[in-house]
């Protein structure tokens, strides 16, 4: 049996695997795609560290900026750890070959992102996440870490409150596989795709690990906090990076007039845009005045993608935009050792809630989180596995998952789940989105209840088991419905506005709610409470 099983091969998963290996554990990584193809590759802005390479900065300022953005529900000790270890983390990335952009003096270049008091984000052009992820992958090869692709997580093996591995679907063969391990790390990413096409994220960001952990008995927290990015392309939700506004781009309403401070926090700008859209008509970002040469040099991706998806050339035309889901602050509840409420089960990255982002994440902190808490999870999981000489598992004792999958296949199913998936995502964007209130949330909850009743009438028409992507999308959809339920229940419970969670029926912060929301399963029922 292997020591540490890592599920997910994005930044957090690969760092966790490297750390566990370094500690002396045997490690296996599973991913539902391939390593290097995860959400991490889409991170553009940078990774925060108070290096003071491009102007004066300090760990204290990094700490204070992060704490402020978290709006009172972060764990100060965790933020301290994040900021303290930032400098070391970036030095390590430099030492393994991440090709950071450079200053004239040879140091790593840094830029200022929203909410930061200094130029703190170390970047590699507009490819920071991509280049970090690929370098981590190369290190995993160097350290002979086993990485198995095309494995979709179905359930965790848990006996008497202790994890013993994971059960996955091998997409290549259609077979269900048990991977037993002494400890397991979930690094499966966030859940922004519950907003479907109204999300900047990759199509697979469906919160699978979070849903699986919940089913296995783990607690979740703060699921109602979802960050919306103000500027995504209107038709395709492709991100127009914050640097477009940072460099001087304007937001214009249907009358081609400016209506807000473009440099305010993401949640405020998103709300201002939604208000304009509610009046009818489009909202645009205008970067024409920056000049074609500047755009080609600083925003080449944006120009290419706007032309491709919107048929608009930003050098000469206005770009139609809308705010869409971008990052999910909530996730699996973990302690200071990155361990979940299930013994031996750890979590890191966007799927975990280390309480460093609180009610709103700062740009540049998510890549840093992957490194700092990926390490924490990897080292602790390895220590636990190495100490634990005896096999903790009695194997998977749950339902026959192969049989369950075969039962999902139904060429004559009555309800098309793709149609329902679109409906769910629209419902969430409308009613559990940037602005919420009790009436909207109750409507969404009612919709979800009806959807759950309809689920047995849905199925997978494609009966071939080899690389059945319809089956994968249906399993992802089922996970999404569970995640969506947590998000809406948390949003109903939290009768206040805080950071990214905005209730127009309760527009202010309320001291009573200055704590984390906790979710757990009691039988089939999902319970939501406020942390004491």
């Amino acid at each position, binding site marked *: 049996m292997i020591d540490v099983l890592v599920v997910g091969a994005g930044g957090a998963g690969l760092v966790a695997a490297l750390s566990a290996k370094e500690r002396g554990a045997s490690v296996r990584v599973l991913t539902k*795609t*391939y*390593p*290097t*193809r*995860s*959400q991490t*590759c*889409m991170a553009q802005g940078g990774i925060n560290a108070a290096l003071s390479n491009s102007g004066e900065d300090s760990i204290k300022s990094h700490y204070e900026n992060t704490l402020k953005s978290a709006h009172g529900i972060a764990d100060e000790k965790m933020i301290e750890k994040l900021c303290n270890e930032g400098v070391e983390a970036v*030095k*390590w990335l*430099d*030492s*393994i*070959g991440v*090709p*950071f*952009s*450079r*200053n*004239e*003096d*040879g*140091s790593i*270049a840094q830029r200022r992102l929203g909410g930061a008091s200094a130029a703190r984000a170390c970047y*590699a*052009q507009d*490819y920071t996440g*991509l*280049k970090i992820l*690929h*370098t981590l*992958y*190369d*290190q995993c*090869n*160097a350290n002979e870490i086993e990485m198995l*692709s095309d494995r979709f997580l179905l359930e965790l093996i848990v006996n008497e409150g202790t994890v013993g591995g994971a059960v996955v679907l091998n997409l*290549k063969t259609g077979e269900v596989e048990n991977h037993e391990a002494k400890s397991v790390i979930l690094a499966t990413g966030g859940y922004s795709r519950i907003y479907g096409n109204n999300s900047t994220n*990759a*199509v*697979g960001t469906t919160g699978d690990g979070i849903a699986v952990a919940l089913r296995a008995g783990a607690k979740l927290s703060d699921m109602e906090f979802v960050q919306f990015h103000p500027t995504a392309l209107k038709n*395709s939700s*492709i*991100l127009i990076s914050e640097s477009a506004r940072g460099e001087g781009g304007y937001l214009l309403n249907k009358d081609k007039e400016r209506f807000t401070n473009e440099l305010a926090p993401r949640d405020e700008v998103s709300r201002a845009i939604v208000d304009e859209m509610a009046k009818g008509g489009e909202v645009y970002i205008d970067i024409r005045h920056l000049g074609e040469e500047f755009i080609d040099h600083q925003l080449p*991706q944006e120009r290419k*993608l706007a032309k*491709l*998806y919107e*048929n608009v050339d930003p050098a000469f035309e206005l770009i139609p935009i809308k705010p869409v889901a971008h990052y999910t602050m909530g996730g699996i509840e973990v302690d200071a050792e990155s361990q979940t409420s299930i013994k031996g089960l750890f979590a890191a990255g966007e799927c975990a809630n280390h309480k460093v982002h609180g009610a709103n994440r700062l740009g540049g902190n998510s890549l840093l989180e992957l490194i700092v808490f990926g390490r924490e999870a990897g080292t602790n999981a390895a220590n636990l596995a190495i100490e634990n000489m005896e096999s903790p598992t009695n194997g998977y004792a749950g339902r026959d998952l192969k049989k369950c999958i075969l039962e999902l296949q139904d060429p004559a199913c009555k309800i098309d789940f*793709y149609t329902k998936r679109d409906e769910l995502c629209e419902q969430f964007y409308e009613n559990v989105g940037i602005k919420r209130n009790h009436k909207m949330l109750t409507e969404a909850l009612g919709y979800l209840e009806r959807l759950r009743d309809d689920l047995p009438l849905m199925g*997978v*028409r*494609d009966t*071939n088991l*080899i*690389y*059945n*992507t*319809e089956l994968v999308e249906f399993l992802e959809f089922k996970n999404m419905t569970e995640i969506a339920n947590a998000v809406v229940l948390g949003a109903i419970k939290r009768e206040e506005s805080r950071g990214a969670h905005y209730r127009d029926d309760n527009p202010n912060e309320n001291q009573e709610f200055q704590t984390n929301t906790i979710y757990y399963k009691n039988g089939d029922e999902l319970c939501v409470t406020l942390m004491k």
Partner: protein
Amino acid sequence: MTINIKRGEELVSYEIEEKNLTLLQVLTQIKTEVDSSLSFSSGCRSSVCGSCAMRVNGREVLACAYKPSEGDLIEPLRNVPVLRDLVVDMDKAYGFNKIAKAWGLPTSKSISVSPQDAKQNELQSDCILCGSCYSACPVYSVNSEFIGPFALTRSWKYVSDLRQSDISSTIAAVQTSGIYDCTLCGECVPVCPQGIAPKQDIVMLKNKSGVLGYMDPSFASSFGGGLTF
């Protein structure tokens, strides 16, 4: 508009509306509205994850960055096993990164890198491992163990990195079924969605190998006979 998709041995035609969509959007529409069994891979929709490489009319493209035209023929990548429809198995291809020992050895000292130095391997590190160059490479028809364009570009990325003090193992790893098996035909260059030229990087690796005392085996063998007595 009609597009034709290679599905196993069959060629299946689909009638699609002309709505100025990308090929990936069109495939998604076919899957969710017409035929849910159509299989393809996708991820980021914005050309950074490398999941949706396929061939259109014989040329490699990313489906998320291509707009289809009347009569297009859509096929899976070449030189890799087809798992189903447009989905290929990249495991062996990815494995060449390991065979090439394309990685850095961590250094403890912090090395100053000027913006000009950083430009040396900036383009090479833009690689998204989509496999387009691997599919376009004709060497695989004669040598299935060829380390191949993307893995060699990756090797050069590290070999050319100022921060690397010891590149000997990476250089040694690309001598067999590596740099000398490339015919420098250049088929890998125009198909790269990131504008990388693996052929150039292979030439650079050959030069570096020469400097380090390695010899092109085809060159060595032509003299081989005369040296035995």
